[in-house]
């Protein structure tokens, strides 16, 4: 069996590989290649054997399958058991994951298990000589740190939307089956509640439309939802409107909410307080709509519209609708 330099932890949902995992696949492959080695990928779930092909065509050399009833739902201990086995089998000394809810829960546990270095939520990764060098935002994005570890014995997670998905090259992977029965799972997921279909979560979305107090009343938030729907975007919010009860906390973007890094972030009636910027300033393209030309949001925006959300948003939604059809 082929030993692998790098192992990627792949997330799937309902039998589909998450986009963040495909992004990580590209980065993990690049690390493996610059170390002159191969890439393993481990995926856990139930009834997921079809995924090996996709992973192989995107660059994985070996796929470690943890296909078992115990893996149907994520659990830290169950999945850690599976990834540990894949690490042992592959001989990999670098473990790559995504900085998602699952990756953030699992990766540090594995770093402690292996007594390896840990680099969380990185936005760039490179091998430089015998070092692994990454960048990551710290202090809620107020600074960007460049960090290095030895290039063996490292667990790292990659921030979603920071790396591009590799083209499918038509390669194929060798498949290894893991025996993951008998994991000692003391924290068990007994139910999974997901929101209505069709609404993209703000932390994962590659487009986000966010609303703030400029929308004046809870009912008016529908203007934000309407535009988000046309764009296929996630809906974000400032803390002011979350605290006012207009929308749930899981939409809050910022220091005490979610960190998002989409390709497009449209801020509507949001002033741009430092704590809000903390959650969105690394977005690729930021559009701000605010009636106050002095609003601090314009300092981080790429495009600014000084205007009234009640006038601009419906027109923008119609224009996107026209573009879509």
């Amino acid at each position, binding site marked *: 069996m082929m030993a692998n330099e790098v192992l990627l932890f792949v997330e799937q949902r309902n039998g589909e590989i998450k986009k963040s995992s495909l992004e990580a696949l590209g980065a993990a492959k690049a690390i493996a290649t610059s170390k002159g080695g191969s890439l393993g990928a481990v995926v856990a779930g139930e009834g997921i054997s079809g995924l090996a092909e996709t992973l192989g065509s995107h660059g994985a050399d070996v796929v470690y399958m943890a296909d078992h009833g115990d893996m149907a*739902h994520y659990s*830290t*201990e169950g999945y850690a058991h599976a990834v540990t086995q894949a690490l042992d089998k592959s001989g990999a000394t670098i473990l790559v994951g995504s900085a998602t*809810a699952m990756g*953030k*829960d699992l*990766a*540090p546990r*594995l*770093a*402690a*298990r292996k007594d390896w*270095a*840990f680099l*969380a939520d990185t936005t760039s990764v490179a091998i430089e000589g015998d070092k692994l060098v990454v960048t990551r935002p*710290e*202090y*809620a994005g*107020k*600074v*960007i*740190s*460049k*960090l*290095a*570890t*030895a290039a063996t*014995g490292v667990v790292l997670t990659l921030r979603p939307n920071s790396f591009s998905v590799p083209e499918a090259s038509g390669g194929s992977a060798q498949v290894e089956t893991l025996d993951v029965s008998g994991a000692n799972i*003391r*924290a*068990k*997921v007994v139910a999974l*509640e*997901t*929101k209505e279909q069709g609404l993209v*979560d703000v932390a994962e979305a590659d*487009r986000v439309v966010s609303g703030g107090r400029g929308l004046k009343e809870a009912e008016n938030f529908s203007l934000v939802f309407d535009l988000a729907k046309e764009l296929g975007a996630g809906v974000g919010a400032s803390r002011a409107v979350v605290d006012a009860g207009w929308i749930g*906390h*899981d939409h809050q973007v910022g*220091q*005490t*909410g979610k960190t998002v890094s989409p390709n*497009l972030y449209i801020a509507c009636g949001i002033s741009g307080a430092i*704590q809000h910027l*903390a959650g969105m300033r690394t977005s*690729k*393209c930021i559009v*701000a709509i605010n009636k106050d030309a002095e609003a601090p949001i*314009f*300092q*981080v925006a790429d*495009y*600014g*519209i000084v*205007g*009234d959300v009640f*006038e*601009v948003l419906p027109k*923008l939604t119609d224009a*996107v609708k026209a573009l879509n059809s």
Partner: protein
Amino acid sequence: MKILVCVKQVPATDSRIKPTGDGVGVDLSSVDWIINPYDEFAIEEALQLKAKHDGEVVVVSIGGDKVEDAMRSALALGVDTAEVIKDAGSAASDSLGIAKGLAAIAKRHNPDLILCGKQAVDDDQMAVPAMLAELLDLPQATVVVGMEVAEDGKSAKVDREIEGGHEKIEVTFPAVIATQKGLNEPRYANLKGIMAAKKKKIEVLSAADLGLGEFGSKVEVLAVNPPAEKTGARMIEGDAAAQVTELIKVLHDEEKII
């Protein structure tokens, strides 16, 4: 029920954070120090559990020379005792170094439950709670927004926030639980609490007291840079209709993102 709460002292969230002159650190000389905001939910949950299950709440921290201030604030809220590892070198430690230190303290207490915040708002790692759980061989639940402890205090049903939904988890104690906003409403200290806190003891330990070596790090800081300066927004002029037309045009033709 014995509950250990891990509290980190961090710069206030509205602090101006800038790289140091040599470009390999962060200038923290003039910041105000606070309890990490997420740790406030952990403290509040511990105090509520103490009221219900009759128990003891110990706050622990690893920090620099001001760390006692954070402990004093926690004691003022009703926490029973505080224990810190005070070590100037700890600031340069990585998450695993800190987790090892906290694990060493935890072993002295054998708590039924360890509560942490979900994330420290300085280095934003979200790592210590899971590492601590692994080092102590305990189950974990992170990003917890709901928690119901069984009558016997030996397990809990928790609600963990994930992308686009929630996981309902049943976890046996002892366990490590990392708290997220939404779990509870942290209380404020009152005068009585502040007075009482003055009389409570903060035990100060050194790494050596716990049989730990120096705080090390497997991670080296090469540089700390300010985020790329945006040059200011390109303002789109005209009436609303003209602005929208122009915006659609740039997003579609130039940025190619819609």
